[in-house]
């Protein structure tokens, strides 16, 4: 039997190649909500508000990029929020207490993050401890270390930062550098996840670890790489957060791991592995972000934010379940 030649057209249009059903749906929902909110509040569709909102999303968004890779590999990383905080504290602490150049301090912080990722990955992939347990422990260790190093109080950066504050506060053509960098990361990782051979291996591993092994894929190596990448991204988010606020707070990134996971799931990632896109995760981050922003603009108490985020997550999962059922 030969295939009809037109079957490949399903994959041909540019839009479909980049976006699946899930991404299209999210964009549609985001547009609808934006229209509604901009009617209700004239402050919503202003450049200033959008930039502030985007700046607020960027750190969690970077975590969501890495978390997508982790979830696709079939794992999960609960330590990212703590690692974010620890990175900021290490860079800030080295600079303030030991006079280490802030850039070099940041580099050291990122190297420590990579080691944390290596530790996570080693115990998960080589020893075989479930990711939930290993990273839960690391979540406590990293957060605890951040508290120990700062004795619980935030460190304020001052003195000669040699342009370090540009990372989180600088602007190019009126757009914060942090946002531009965030967008660059999104484009880069979305592209890599779709098109590059090494990242495709992550999909194989997450889809069926046994089959990946029997296809000659070095499963532990792939998994360890994934956790190292995740921790380094968390470290980068921490450095940018430090720069943005000029404060190394031991509490930075508290709860961010859960925001990142829910953004990924809203964006179509599966906790069972093998599924998920960076674009989807970012759209999930944006959806939660603009709804929270809308609540603020509409003078709804901030106490509603968590509740609403939870509802969105559940709604996304239920919709996903129903559409999957219909398809099968």
């Amino acid at each position, binding site marked *: 039997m030969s295939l009809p030649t037109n079957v490949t057209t399903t994959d041909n249009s540019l839009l479909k190649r980049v976006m699946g059903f899930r991404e299209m749906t999210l964009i549609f929902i985001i547009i609808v909500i934006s229209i509604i909110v901009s009617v209700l509040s004239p402050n919503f569709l202003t450049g200033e508000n959008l930039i502030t909102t985007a700046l607020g999303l960027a750190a969690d968004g970077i975590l969501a990029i890495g978390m997508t890779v982790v979830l696709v590999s079939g794992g999960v990383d609960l330590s990212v929020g703590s690692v974010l905080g620890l990175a900021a504290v290490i860079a800030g602490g080295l600079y303030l207490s030991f006079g280490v150049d802030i850039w070099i301090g940041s580099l050291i912080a990122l190297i420590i993050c990579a080691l944390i990722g290596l530790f996570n990955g080693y115990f998960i992939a080589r020893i075989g401890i479930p990711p939930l347990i290993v990273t839960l422990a690391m979540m406590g260790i990293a957060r605890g270390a951040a508290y120990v190093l700062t004795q619980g109080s935030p460190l304020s950066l001052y003195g000669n930062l040699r342009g370090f504050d540009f990372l989180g506060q600088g602007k190019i053509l009126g757009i914060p550098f942090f946002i531009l960098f965030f967008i660059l990361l999104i484009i880069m990782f979305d592209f890599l996840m779709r098109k590059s051979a090494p990242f495709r291996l992550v*999909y194989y591993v997450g889809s069926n670890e046994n089959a990946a092994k029997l296809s000659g894929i070095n499963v532990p190596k792939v998994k360890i790489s994934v956790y190292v990448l995740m921790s380094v991204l968390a470290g980068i988010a921490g450095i940018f957060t430090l720069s943005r606020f000029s404060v190394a707070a031991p509490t930075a990134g508290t709860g961010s791991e859960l925001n990142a996971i829910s953004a990924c799931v809203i964006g179509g990632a599966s906790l069972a592995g093998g*599924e998920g896109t960076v674009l989807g995760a970012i759209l999930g981050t944006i959806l939660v972000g603009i709804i929270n922003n809308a609540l603020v603009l509409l003078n709804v108490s901030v106490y509603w934010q968590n509740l609403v985020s939870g509802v969105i997550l559940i709604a996304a999962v239920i919709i996903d379940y129903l559409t999957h059922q219909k398809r099968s």
Partner: protein
Amino acid sequence: MKVSASAELLRLNGITKIFPGTVALSDVSFSVNRAEIHAIVGENGAGKSTLMNIISGNLQPDKGEIYLEGKKVKIRSPRDAQNLGISIVHQELALCPHLTVAENIYIGRLPQKSRKIVDYDKLNKMSEEVLALFDEVNIKPIDKVADLNVAQQQIVEIAKAITFNCKLLILDEPTSALSEADAEVLFKIIKDLKSKGISILYISHRLREIFELADRITVLRDGRYIATLNTVETNPDQVVSLMVGREIKEMYPPKSSKIGEEIFRVENISSEKVQNVSFSLHEGEILGFAGLVGAGRTELAQTICGILPRHCGEIYLEGKRLEIKSFEDAIKNRIGYVTEDRKQFGLFLRLPVAYNVSAIYLKYDCKRLLIDRQKERGLAQEFVKKLNIKTSSYFQLVMSLSGGNQQKVMVAKWLAINPKILILDEPTRGIDVGAKAEIHNLLRELAKSGIGIILISSEMPEIIGMCDRVLVMREGRITGELSGDQITEENIMQLAAHR
């Protein structure tokens, strides 16, 4: 055949089931007698599973009636079916591995002392009574299911099924994971159950065992009822031709007429379950490994490929000694291994056909960082065509393909890297007759084209029909080599059986 009314247990009348896009069953009518072993045969997609799901209450028919003991019944759920005395043992076993045998048999209806406290003494005693029916297999009520082998687990499933005051037991491909010896034990149990008045609906692809067991055979094809035959009045050729709707003269492609030079040699390989195995493979040849399940054939294959650690021994490919420390080394030397368990170990079920085909290629033959989509699609296209894989597009999920086509995708994955040696472990397990023949022809083609083919199979006819030379294994050792006319069932069993 004349059947008196009282002999009839189950009658299906005009059963029709329509799924979106396909008619799974169309006006199927036949009956099953009391204390009868009734086989259902048909290619994959013939509607066997759908029919069994309807009888066992998993699916509702769109049209048609079911009569049990002359009374019209509606089977709305598996629970209804159990209450009516209909139980099913699925191909994929559904036991709780961490619980004991007794807890599994009486799951959901554990005897209780009072206040929801389980009466374990009574439970184990009840289980012991049931297990006494299966004295050939040594299973105790307090054994953990995870510690049992597949054959024993199947017995637990059957024990569980018959405790529901069972009148009709449906067995779906019960021997697909069993060795010949274990299958013999199962056959004896099935005959015992029959003598106790239980009717068996027996679904299998293996005609040989159907002819050994069944009283009558019902053939389905493309969702339609074709015929019910008395086993004594028919023969496998007739049944096969009814199943496929055409005469299959030659079940196997002709054997090799030209055996070339030695291309692959294994010397004194030992590992945990393999003892001092040596053999060689020649160009154009299909080399078979026969033996009972657990004889160490899979372990040997995995040791050669570096998946399992090798204690000692050497491997030569085209006269050159290979340094194989991991599976990756084997693949780099173009040695491929097609696993026996396609769902668990072979395929990425939730990924598209194209991604599955390119899985090994991407790591070993794609030198660039970025995936060439055109090339990836081209690869899928090439093998979909070459292996006649029936799929609606290269982006269809492998999950939704039939077993035979999944198997072909698994082979395609390896062919994509142009292997020199391909070891296939039970490559036709649980797939229909048509797909089986296609795989057999493919293997012969590959052997002709110069790829060394090693075939591990527990199906005697397959080993006898396909292989130019057969090595028989027992307890991790090679116990004999057969070629040409020596390759007979008796000779193989002689060498394979425990003694």
